[in-house]
């Protein structure tokens, strides 16, 4: 676990995350730092589109570790998350053995000289790592290089799956009945994200550090937008972020995410806009608002405000 350089301080982490394009706020940087120092998994919760997944990716870039991602969904099971035996390969092996022996005597019940020994040998043979298909969790545990393991949208899975994760998260090991316990060779950084669509179990939470990510403040979001679209004018960026914040205040089905602010900034840049007025907003609104009912609401509330105040400036700007 002492194989990668550990960060010296919270400021270091914040800086290294910043260098790979993720502007973390104080709590996020601190938790990222603690995750690396204590080797504990991090549970990140927050509304959709605040950069929960991005945090894990940035951590992998900043630490130079590979990112292994397990995308969760309803019905995800061990075979998809941990490991699976490669039936076909096992079967081939058995058949090859049978062909060599001249007799299909791999069945221990079959009579014959030495058949039992041979069968036992094949048996232990086909349940070796060679016949194991590793899935993300096992991959992360068995990797010789330190990795970042991202378990995305853990709230989409069933509770049973959470229980299965506990062994991985607290002891960093996986028990395979036929092989024994596989222990982590390096200590992975584990990041779990949740959109809070259901309560996670206490047991899981107890093993994690907790981080609540929320939409960033105007200043920070402006920095983020400008980092990703450096050509944008500062004035325009501020205006854009302010409008986004106004939109988020409304009761929407899906409030605009940070990624959508960036998309919008790029679109405005392409259009050569230098101010956001009612008309421009109405035309480009679909970039940040993705529901029909939401669009009506936003057009009514925000569009009006923009159109009302900037009504005269609209022609001039256009």
């Amino acid at each position, binding site marked *: 676990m002492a194989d990668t350089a550990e960060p010296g*301080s*919270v400021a270091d982490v914040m800086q290294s995350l910043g260098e790979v394009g993720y502007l973390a706020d*104080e*709590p996020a940087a*601190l*938790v990222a*730092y*603690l995750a690396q*120092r*204590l080797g*504990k998994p991090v*549970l990140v*919760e927050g509304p959709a589109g605040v950069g929960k997944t991005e945090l894990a990716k940035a951590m992998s870039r900043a630490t130079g570790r590979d990112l292994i991602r397990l995308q969760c969904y309803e019905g995800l099971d061990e075979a998809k998350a941990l490991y699976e035996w490669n*039936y*076909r390969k096992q*079967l081939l092996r058995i*058949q090859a053995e049978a062909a060599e022996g001249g007799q299909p005597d791999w069945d221990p019940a079959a009579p014959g000289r030495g058949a039992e020994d041979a069968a036992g040998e094949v048996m232990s043979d086909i349940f070796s790592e060679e016949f194991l298909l590793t899935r993300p969790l096992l991959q992360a545990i068995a990797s010789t290089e330190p990795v970042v393991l991202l378990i995305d949208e853990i709230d989409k899975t069933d509770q*049973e799956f959470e229980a299965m994760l506990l062994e991985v998260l607290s002891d960093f090991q996986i028990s395979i009945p036929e092989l024994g316990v596989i222990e982590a060779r390096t200590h992975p950084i584990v990041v779990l994200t949740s959109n*809070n*669509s*259901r*309560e996670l179990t*206490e047991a899981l*939470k*107890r*093993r*994690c*550090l*907790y*981080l*609540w990510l929320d939409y960033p403040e105007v200043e920070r979001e402006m920095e983020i937008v400008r980092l990703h679209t450096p050509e944008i004018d500062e004035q325009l960026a501020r205006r854009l972020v302010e409008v986004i914040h106004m939109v988020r205040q*409304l*009761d929407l089905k899906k409030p605009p995410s940070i990624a959508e602010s960036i998309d919008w900034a790029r679109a405005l840049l392409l259009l050569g806009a230098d101010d956001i007025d009612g008309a421009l907003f109405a035309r480009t609104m679909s970039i940040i608002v993705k529901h*029909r*009912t939401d669009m*009506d609401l936003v057009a009514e509330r925000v569009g009006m405000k923009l159109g009302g105040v900037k009504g005269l400036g609209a022609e001039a700007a256009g």
Partner: protein
Amino acid sequence: MSPLPPGLAPRLVSFCEELRGEGVAIGTSEILDAFEALDTVPWTREEDFREALAATVAKSQEDRRVFELLFDRYFFRAAEFEALERGIGEDRRYDGGEGLDLNELREAVRQAIADGRDGEMRDLARLAIAAFGRQGEGSGVIGVDVQRIRRTLGLQSQGRGEKGDVALDREQINQFERHLRRELERDLIERTEKLPPSRPLAELDRALPTSPAQDLAAVHRSVTQLKRRLATLGHEQRGRRRGAAVDMRRTMRASLDTGGVPLRLKYRPKHPRRPEIYVLCDVSTSVTSASVFFLSVLHALHDSFRKLRSFVFIERISEVTDVFERERDFRSISERISREGGVADVSGYTDYGRVWLEFLEEIVDDLGPRSTVIVLGDARTNGREPQAEVFAQIAERAGRTFWLNPEPRLYWNYGDSVMAAYERHCTAAFECWTTRHLENFVNVVAGGTPLVPQS
């Protein structure tokens, strides 16, 4: 990193005790984590100290909120207690308040609040107390003093400030108020030389700030949960494969992969039971305050369930399923229901007996053991015939019957409420007027433990 100072460890443990007292579940392992975390961050920086502690012991947004409230209070009290013990005090810190120019001070405070400069706000809070309260002449009740000072300073949020002042952010004003409160408390402790008893957090403080919009979202969340729970109810045997039939065709087909050896058995899929839900919602005047909540529940249910029929009733019953299906926006739904719900609203008084008769007549053939009937209403019959036996028939035909009552259990069967007559036939009855109650209902339906203790 610098090791934790002596004496901090017991403090932290007792802080965690206090958090537990407020219902935050903290395990011993989490306290150990907290110590480990605090070993690696400089504990001398408040921000780091607080965040590190929060990340290890507060594991949800609600917990975090309680944590913030308690953190401030606990360490403030701890520091004051220490000061008392050692007899440290600032005797003359309110001197010089008389000479202050009120207008200047008001401007300075507004400026500090607008800029959000924390340290300055604290200093100004002290000055303000000096200028207005004048030590010893406060009312002695902290809340009253805070309001008095706030009024004198003319601190109002959003545009109502005098002479075109910059509108101040509500949150920032609250911040200033917190400083005021704290300084007044400190003052009080120094004067009386003892700590006031610590009180449990008020329910109002600990609740996350919400707006009606958020409530609607919360209702939707609970209902989504309800959907999952209802859909998986009775599916416990799914994992056990008990009684599952082998699908020969698919098994043979799968065996082609493995050279004709049927290694993997394929089972006939079990078709999940589709829940059929009937919701009856009272929209009479006696439940006006709750009906917006009920309609939002109904709205959310429609979002989640395909096979759902909803009815509203006052004196008579009226099906509104298609209103919900056609309209997506909550506001227009409530408008349409009040306008053309078709509820024969002659007197505006609920007639439960008649409602049951009509409901039974309308859907008698559809009700079966798979159906769930949910009634949202206060069971106030206005003295009319309750027809409990008709309701019993409905409950008997349906698989499950739930009653959500917008009144506290205390008021049930009081006055013209005939809840007891109906409750007997229900699978369960719940008080329900907040999303928390709704969550509780969902939990119980799913066979979990109730969140709110049922009295």
